[in-house]
């Protein structure tokens, strides 16, 4: 082992060129979340615990519906990216790593679709 060169030691462990895109994309989603999270949070806090009709009224308004949809899409993307990095840092067994990366992606994709569907249904039916 100690006679191996540094080059030989990293050979076959995967690409070293693919990280920048992911890193930059993570910053972009975090920048987008600065206004989106604030625009989402305060109306949401106001509606939590309110009665059903009031909630429908708020989120059938185009402003709140569009903000909530954008927030959930970007939030789920950001969670997918952040958790991917955490998984890559702490999970080392190859099969577990691959399956958790796939599960992570599918989970946040599904969560985003469900949230967007729910908000769209409220916006279009009220």
């Amino acid at each position, binding site marked *: 082992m100690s006679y191996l060169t540094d080059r030989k030691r990293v050979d076959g462990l995967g690409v070293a060129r693919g990280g920048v895109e992911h890193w930059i994309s993570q910053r972009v989603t975090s920048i987008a979340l600065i206004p989106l999270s604030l625009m989402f949070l305060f109306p949401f806090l106001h509606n939590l615990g309110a009665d059903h009709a009031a909630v429908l009224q708020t989120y059938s308004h185009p402003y709140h519906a569009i903000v909530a949809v954008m927030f959930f899409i970007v939030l789920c993307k950001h969670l997918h990216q952040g958790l991917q990095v955490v998984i890559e840092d702490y999970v080392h067994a190859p099969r577990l790593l691959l399956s958790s990366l796939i599960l992570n992606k599918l989970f946040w994709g599904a969560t985003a679709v469900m949230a967007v569907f*729910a908000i769209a249904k409220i916006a279009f039916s009220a």
Partner: protein
Amino acid sequence: MADANQGNRPLSPHLQVYRPQITSVLSILNRITGIGMSLATVLIAWWFLAAATGAEYFAVVDGFLTSWFGILILVASLLAFWFHFFNGLRHLRWDAGYGMGMKSVMRSGQVAVVMSIAATILCIILAV
């Protein structure tokens, strides 16, 4: 280049004997709050699905989220959100190349902690 003694060197840092510092503690807190907010995201998505489904189901989910257990999760998530928000701004500032001196790093860390606690209390007052 090729280090012949690659496998035998001491590892650094040894977390067990390393004194916690504001830099390292806030760094790991950023991760923990990020992971933790997964739960709040799923719960809020569930809340919207319930609102889209009907008044009865909405009452169940909204009732859970405003029960003591739901409020506990949401208040913890709110604190996690504000910390991640302010610490995220700190990270973006570093990414832009500013504020990386030791004094500045510690100062901005203290500001992030104070701001996140203040913003959480303010939100609780607004929501009640």
